[in-house]
């Protein structure tokens, strides 16, 4: 920032106000846990920021009988509290309550987690992928709804002229699980994440985070499972399929190489299926 220039900081109270600031070039500030580390990465903090925490609509979780709406400014801790005990959302709750560490979870938001472009290990991304969440954006042209998969793929371009406002979830899951693999018991970013869910049609959805730069559904494995009987939700059997259909290119990082991230996927899937089977929702199996 040039000397003498005062940083612009807008605490927007409406989405419109936030969008106006965004249009003038302000960067969106959520909890701050990612952006505040920019200087450490050698990136200057933005000259203008717009904070979303004062927009009431973005700071609440609405839990309805057939759907759930999560404001982008809801923290991980608040999301976990709101959905704890809701059948079908076990995985999302585990993601919200297992990410990073307790202090960060009280500050870091859902929107921030999805919009941190270089953050491959975001816990909520695979968890929301198996929820088949819809991302609501406010763009300069108006509101827009987008599937989470498409959002994650295109977010780099999308976010240049949009703000993530809400996440919409259908309540069509009967069970879900979220298996994260940090290198310690907890506290570091997971080197691999597997999220799983079973919907009302007894179809299994699986997503993988942190293994590749962006989280994605494990379509090959889902299809292989769909080809078998529903009763085939057997941990060992699914792990074998995972081994057979492992189409991930693991990313190399300081903490783990690509080989390792890829190698641990079948066992994580196995654990995930076991976790699914332990939920009430799949007692029918």
């Amino acid at each position, binding site marked *: 920032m040039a000397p003498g220039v*005062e*940083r612009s*900081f807008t*605490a927007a109270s409406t989405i419109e106000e936030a969008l106006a600031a965004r249009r003038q070039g302000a960067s969106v*500030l959520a*909890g*701050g*846990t990612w952006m*505040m*580390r920019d200087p*450490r990465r050698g990136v200057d*903090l933005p000259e203008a*920021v717009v*904070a979303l*925490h004062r927009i009431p609509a973005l700071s609440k979780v609405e839990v309805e009988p057939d759907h759930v709406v999560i404001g982008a400014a809801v923290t991980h801790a608040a999301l976990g509290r709101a959905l704890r005990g809701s059948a079908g959302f076990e995985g999302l709750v585990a993601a919200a309550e297992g990410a*990073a*560490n*307790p*202090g*960060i979870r*009280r*500050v870091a938001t859902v929107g921030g987690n999805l919009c941190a472009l270089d953050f491959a290990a975001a816990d909520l991304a695979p968890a929301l992928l198996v929820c088949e969440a819809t991302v609501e954006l406010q763009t300069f042209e108006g509101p827009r709804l987008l599937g989470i998969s498409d959002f994650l793929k295109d977010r780099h371009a999308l976010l240049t002229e949009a703000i993530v406002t809400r996440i919409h979830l259908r309540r069509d899951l009967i069970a879900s699980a979220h298996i994260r693999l940090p290198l310690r*018991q*907890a*506290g570091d970013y997971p080197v691999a994440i597997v999220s799983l869910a079973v919907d009302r049609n007894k179809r299994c959805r699986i997503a993988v985070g942190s293994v590749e730069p962006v989280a994605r559904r494990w379509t090959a494995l889902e299809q292989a499972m769909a080809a078998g009987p529903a009763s085939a939700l057997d941990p060992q059997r699914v792990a074998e399929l995972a081994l057979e259909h492992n189409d991930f290119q693991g990313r190399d990082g300081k903490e783990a190489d690509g080989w390792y991230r890829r190698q641990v996927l079948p066992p994580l899937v196995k654990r995930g299926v076991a976790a699914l089977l332990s939920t009430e929702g799949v007692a029918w199996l």
Partner: protein
Amino acid sequence: MVVTFQLNGEDCRLDGDPMTPLVDILRQERFLTGTKAVCREGFCGACMVHVDDEAVPSCLKPIGLVQGCAVTTIEGLSSGNQALHPLQANFEAADAVQCGMCFPGMVMSLSAFVRDNPHASRPEIKAAMVGNICRCTGYERIVDAVADCLDQARKAGQLAGGIHV
């Protein structure tokens, strides 16, 4: 930009860069050096403060986001000649402290935790400490002291008619 908030119960008005981390204001402008800036990335917990009664890392909290909030630091937890917080008293009695630099943050994290989780188990206490690193002690004595503190509070509570920490 002007930011106003409550700091240890008193009005605090600042005029400065709204993206300044709260920890820098506390240490450099208010000389509240009990809040330690160790990793400055939210991993170590040495800079934990209470913002509106929630324990959060002050290194990642831009002051623009504390406008209108109530901030309590370790200095505000038991100020002046006030008695120690029961956790502090337990840590002292258990000889849990070594170099001591992690403890202000440890106390701020865990004081909020014991308030909200009076029946926490040992594994739950450990899970609550994931964002508080101690390089000296190997943690177990801290966990013991927290467990003892909860135990004492429960016993005192039962005697006093079920009031918890």
